[in-house]
Structures are given as structure tokens and as C-alpha cells.
């Protein structure tokens, strides 16, 4: 039953270009994130922005020197954050967990743990009343979300009561995230990363 749900989730998420991997603990998730960040070019948006013909004022938005890399992880608990910092330091990657407004020009990566998964659409549910958490999942180029498999539901029918309870109990900002930011507004050609992440990676944490 659960295996079937995980398979459905994976298929649906991959169908919208998400990368889905399994991890058996949080440490593996952190290692994965740091590895991907290390392998990617530094802030492609900024590089691309420098190459591309953006207006002068838009170009000024970038205040970081080329080559620096940032992972935003405002929602991680203390242990995970410490673990991430240690791993990131080895690769010369900076970890930020607050004040994300400063990074409006772009972040390399956002890392967070999702609250629920909805298998029928490959969706992640993220409680992000915290402004920094919202920004980390929007300003980054690669969005990495860890989903504990125990938090996976078949779909909105099954999750409806939990979702309603979250809204009633102070979740001021609840996001369903499915794949990367996308547009088809120019000639109906699908382009990823119009405002938010260019990639979404989902790490299924087999927590039970």
C-alpha cells in the first residue's frame, strides 16, 4: 500500500520534471544537497544575468561576487543545520538561515523539510508562515525538499482534515509545491524557473 503510494508520488513528481531520490536519514539528505550544490555552477541566474541583456538596474541587484555559493536553510532544526554547516564548509559553500530578503537576486539552493506529501499529484505541502522559509523556496535556483515517507498521503481527499486543521491552528501560509516554477506564456513553450526555482529535488526520507 505504502509502496504503491510512493511509486505514484514518484511517477507524478517526475512527470513534472522533479528529481526524486530516496534517503534513509537526514544526514544523507544533507550530503545530497551539498553535493548537488557543489556540482552546480555558482548562481547560474547571476551568471546568466550578467551574460544576458538585463537592464543596468536589474544587473545591480547582484551584490555578491561571482563564485560564492549559498544554501538557504531557514527551516532546519538545530542538529540538521549544524550538520549542514559542517558539510558545506568543506566545499566552501555558505549556509544562510535568516535575513533572506537580502538575497532577492538569487540563491543557489533552498533546503527544507516538507510537512506532507500528496501522492496523486506528486505534491509537497509546506507550512511556511516564516517569511524566510517562503523566500528560501522561491529565491533559490534548486529547491530541495525532504519528505518523511510517514508524512505521505494519497491525495487531497485523505489529507483534507489535516490541512484544514493546519489552517485553523495558525498556519498563516501554506504552500502546495509541485515541480519547479514554470511558465508557458511565450508561444506556449514550457520554460522552468520563471520566478522561482529552476529545479525541484525531492528526497524521500524513509523514516519508519
Amino acid at each position, binding site marked *: 500500500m505504502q509502496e504503491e503510494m510512493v511509486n505514484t508520488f514518484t511517477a*507524478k513528481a517526475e512527470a*513534472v520534471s522533479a528529481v526524486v531520490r530516496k534517503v534513509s536519514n537526514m544526514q544523507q539528505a544533507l550530503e545530497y544537497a551539498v553535493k548537488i550544490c557543489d556540482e552546480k555552477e555558482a548562481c547560474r*541566474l547571476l551568471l*546568466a*544575468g550578467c551574460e*544576458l*541583456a*538585463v*537592464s*543596468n*538596474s*536589474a*544587473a545591480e*541587484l547582484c551584490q555578491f561576487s561571482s563564485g560564492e555559493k549559498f544554501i538557504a536553510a531557514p527551516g532546519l532544526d538545530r542538529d540538521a543545520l549544524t550538520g549542514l554547516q559542517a558539510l558545506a564548509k568543506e566545499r566552501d559553500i555558505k549556509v544562510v538561515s535568516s535575513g533572506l*530578503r537580502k538575497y*532577492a*537576486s*538569487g540563491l543557489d539552493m533552498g533546503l527544507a523539510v516538507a510537512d506532507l506529501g500528496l501522492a*496523486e*499529484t506528486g*505534491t509537497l505541502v509546506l507550512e511556511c*508562515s*516564516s*517569511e524566510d522559509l*517562503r*523566500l528560501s523556496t*522561491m529565491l533559490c535556483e534548486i529547491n530541495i525538499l525532504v519528505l518523511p515517507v510517514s508524512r505521505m498521503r494519497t491525495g*487531497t*481527499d485523505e489529507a*483534507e482534515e489535516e*490541512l*484544514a486543521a493546519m*489552517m*485553523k491552528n495558525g*498556519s*498563516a*501560509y*501554506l*504552500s*502546495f*509545491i*509541485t*515541480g*519547479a*516554477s*514554470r*511558465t*508557458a*506564456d*511565450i*508561444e*506556449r*513553450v514550457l*520554460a522552468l*524557473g*520563471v*520566478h*522561482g*526555482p529552476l529545479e525541484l529535488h525531492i528526497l524521500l526520507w524513509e523514516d519508519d
Partner: protein
Amino acid sequence: MLNADNIKEYLSEIEEALQNDFQRKTLDTFAVAYRTGRANAFSGMDIPGLVKDIARSKDDSLAEMDELYQQFKEKAQALGVHVHLAADAKQANEIIAGIAREHQCRNVVKSKSMTAEEIHLNVALEKEGMKIVETDLGEWIIQLRKEPPSHMVLPAIHLSRYQVADLFEKVTSKKQDSDIFKLVKVARRELRREYVQADMGISGANFAVAETGSLGLVTNEGNARLVTTLPRVHVALVGLEKLTPKLKDALLLLKALPRNATGQQITSYVTWLTGPSECKSSADGKKVMHIVFLDNGRRKLSSDKNFSQILRCIRCGACANVCPVYRLVGGHKYGYVYIGAIGLVTTYFFHGRDKARLLVQNCINCGACKEVCAAGIDLPGLIKDIHARILDEEGHPPRSKLLAMVLKNRRLFHMLLRNMRFAQLPFADAKARYVRHLPSIFMKGQDFRKLPVLASTAFRDKWKSVKPNVSRPKLKVGLFSGCAVDFIYPEQMEAAVKVISKGKSIAQDHPEKQTCCGLPALMMGEKDAARETARQNIEAFASSGSDYIVTLCASCAAHLKYGYPKLLEGEKGLEQKLKAFTDKVMDFSSFVRDVMRISPMLFRKTVQKVGYHSPCHLCRGLEVREAPRANINLVHEYVPTAEEEVCCGFGGSYSLNFPPVSRTLLAGKMANLRAGGISAVGTDCPGCVMQIRGGMARAGIDIEVKHVAELMAEQLK
């Protein structure tokens, strides 16, 4: 946005739109791709069940709009949200401008909202000296071009990458590449700066959940998340019809919205806002949040028995995606602010009669929108109703009054039709098959197809001589010929009589007092005349005692079966007769295959390749799809061709009123049939025969066009 003041100007705008090759090609590709995308997205789901659930859920919400508003307001206010109710566009704009003044906001970033388009919010705020930037890519593009959206979901679908590149050159003062991915990145970078500078974010909402005071926002780009996060003030503009009692209702709508809109199972982002959230650019660290609910006629509309269903609309845009007229002319010529079929309807209520008058005439009544609507709105029916309402308000034009007067009097109508043949003969070609030329007042723009002359003897005048004698019948069939078969193509009904007479012990009757089904009157907004002819037909068949009422015309059949109950609803003393009548109505192909279960042994099957054109009112009106194809395959080799279910462009009087659209639809139909390598095409509607046969004859294409009844009768052993 439509500029024309009269039908002549509108037609010339349409001609111009038809010359827009880029738009035509884009919308063609989209129309075809959309069908597959939608089908995949809904695969394995019970679509009719879902549509029914949505219609019920929306109707329930609409019935308690005021209560839901109160409940929402209490919940949201308790969380610290300022809730407003604006009676109309002007008031909504004033409220939002007031919020901006109060909080000293100058720079606004907006995420896409059709409701904001409805009230022309940007214009109003710009007058206040504010800077507004649309952040949805498509909306930003059209904002830079100072145009309205041409599609509810894909607002810039009418533009090419080259046009976008030119536009971005102006914005950035840099030379731009026309590569779409690069253009998207440029927009990303340019718009980031706007989010950072903005002090107010304006969004719409797809759902307003009363039980929690939550708003739901459905987006793909994620711009709404930035618009509702970065600026210190957030204003949401929400139509009252977006209120739902519970989250459950909103989640139900969410099942259909992305699937029906873009063929996605869900959009990239769905955002639920429940009260102000953390905002670090605000003095107290909390977002200033205002929700402005818009009435603008919605409260009144919600209690209108017929028109309240308009407010079920979930703004998916599917009605435009499948509309053959939209596909040709694009959104700027097919709507005011709201476009597509729902736009034709809402324009009257939200923007007034002046803006709606021409638009409501431009519906070919093919029913494609109704079939695809996620909320089960009877769009073509409502368009006709609004047309009739406008005529009642403004006075009926002489031509339509004359038609109504004639139609109400069956004897006069039939006498005129008989005499018309003699009037036509001087203009007919040598074989008297087609009208060769007509005085230009009748023929303006009509020469894209040959029009038939009336038959020398109407079917009603032949009936006595062709009526089969059946001793001890077990089943009685009443034939309803309809005007086109009766007076133009009696041979089609003669063929049908031959085929039906092969059934054992089936008696046939052609009640003398039957008349026009009344659909043409309804199409012209003449509801009274349509009711009168309906009553006459019900009466004519009541005395005949038929078990089935069989017709060769798909449009007649759909109107007799589903139009009559709507037209004559609540008419005292007629309920039983009406039901007895409508229950018996059946199209020829279904009768032959499903009731008679006609034997293949009766026919000589050939190897001739024959295609099929599916009449709109048969495939969508009556949901008959298999029978005519199977019938063709009994006698010839049926060969499927592309887009069989797309309208041929006839649409009755539509083709006379909108010849450019009719002409172009016909050209597409003929191209698809030609590509099929067939020598003949069968269809189950005399109107479609008239259109396609006339087009083939005009273009000199050697593909025969026949009614399925004729194809069958010809091959009887």
C-alpha cells in the same frame, strides 16, 4: 478588446484577425494539443461525476453568498485581516487606492487577477500616481504592450517570441535574443527588482474558504508567492462567487481547475493564506492584509434562477480552448475583458449591454464549450438567452421580427417556402441544383460555397406517394423532417423512409401539421416564436401516436429533445405532452442501429473509402458518436479523418451573419476531409450537407457529400 460599434465594423475586425497568420497557427496548434493534454490529465477520473459535484457545490455556495461572506469576514477579522465589500468597480478601486494612501504605498506588484482586469484596477491606481507592475509573465508582456489579455490563462498567447524580444529591448535598453528560455530569464531578473522595490502586493484569489477565512491562489510561476511575501501590504481582490463553505469545496474545484485549464494535474504552486503572515519589511513584523470582495452585480446574479450558473465559473478558460470561433479570431475579438464563451455571457452582466451586443451574436452554437465546462454551465443556452434579452431591451430588428411573425404561422411559412423556389429559379444554374447568383443583398460574403435551390416538391407534398403500406404494424415512427430536409433535401427523407421500411412491421407517419423546430428563431433571439413553433410540433405529434419521433437533422433533434423542455418549462397543462414528445425524439442513425438493429445482410458493402463529419448537435447535443460511423461502415469502408467533431461552420443563420468565420471553418473542414483520401463523406444533418457540399462544389473538389440515410439507401439490396 472589442472596439466595433456595429456589426459591419465587427466583421471587418474579424476579417483582419483572420489575416493574423501567427495567431491562427498558434491557436490551431493549441486547440489540437489541448484535447490530448486535457484527456491525459483527467485519465481514470469520472469527469461527468466531477462536473456534477462542482455544479452542486458552487450552486450551494452561491445560494448562501451573503452568509458565507459574513462568516469569512468574522474569521478573517479575528485573525487581523481588514475585510471590505465593494458594491461595484468604482468602489473597489477607491477602496484599494485608499489602502495605498493610508499605508503610503507607491509601488505595486501584482499577480494575475481577472477580477482586477474586470474593474480596470491598474488604470485607476495609475491615475493615483502609483506604479503597477504585473508579475505573471504573460500579464507583464501585455501590460508593456498596453493590451488586454487575449486568454484567461494564457494572456499573451497571441504574441510571438519576436514581438516579446522587441518589447524586452525597450524595457532593458539592450539588444535581445529571441530565444524563449533567455527571454524568460530576462523577465525573471527584471521582475525580481520590482518585487524588492514594491510596498504593496495585489493578488486575486481562486478560492475564499469561509470556515477558516483562508484564500487559495493557484499559480504556475510562483509569482503570487513573492507578491504576497515581499511587500509589506497585501491586498487581495476577490469576486464574491469565490466563497466556499469549507476547504473541502475548494479542494474539489482544485481537482478540475488545472486539469481543465492547461491539462496539468495540479499547478506548480497552490498557496493558502489564512490571515496575515510574518513580513519583515513591516513595522510590527506582520503583513498588513486587506481583502476586498467584489459584488459588481454578483449578489443580484446569484439569485437569478437562470443566470446564476454563470457564477459557477472557475476561470479555467477551457471554453475558449475548444471554441472554433475563438480559435480563428483570438481573444481580442472574442470578448471584452473576459473572453471565450463565458466572456460572451459575463460581459453583459459585468460590463453592460453596449459591450455585449455584438459579442453574443458571434456564437455558432456548436456546444463545444458546454461539453468541456468544468462547472456544467449551459454556455450556448445562456448566450442565446442574453441575445434575446438584449433584443427585448432594445427592440427586435425588422428582419428578425418578420421571421418570428412568419414562423408562428405554419401555413404562411410553408406557402412562402413553396413560392420561394419560383423566385429562386431565375438565379439557379442549369441543373437547378445550386443558386447561381443572387442579388447582392442576399449574397454578401456568401460566395465561399454554393447554396442549393429549393426542391421542386417538398417532402410534405410527396409524403402520400412515398408512404409505405404496413399491415398490422408493431411499431410506429413519426418522421420529423425539419425545414431543410422538407424543402431543400426531400430525397434525404425519402432515403430514410426506404431504410426504415426494411424493418419488420414498422409503420411510418409524417404529421402534416409539423413545422420548423424553432431553433432558427431562438438563434435570432426570437423566443416567443420559438415557443409557438414548439407548441405546434408537440401538438402535431401528439395526435399521431408514434412510438418514436425520428429526424434526419441533428440540430432539430437536439432542440426538440433538450431545447423544448427549457423553452416550455412551467407551461401549464403541457408537462405530460412535452415529456411524451421529448422522450420519443431520436436521430436517424441511432434509430436504425439501436432500435431497428438493422442487419448488414440488407446492404451491398463496397470498398469505397468514405469519411464522416460529426454534426455538433449530434455528437455533443445528443452524445451520439458511434451509430453514424457504424452505419457508414455497414455500406462502405469508413475512414476516420482529422477533427471530425469540429464544426463545419454552418450554424444556421450564423453563417449568413458571420460569413468570414463560416468560410474559414469550412475551409478547415474541407482540408481535413481532403487529407483523408476519401471519395465521399457522410453526415447526419442537412445543414452540414448544405455547407460542406456547397463548399466542395464551389472549390471544384470531387468529394461527394451525403446524408448517412442516403448512403445507406443507395446500397440496399
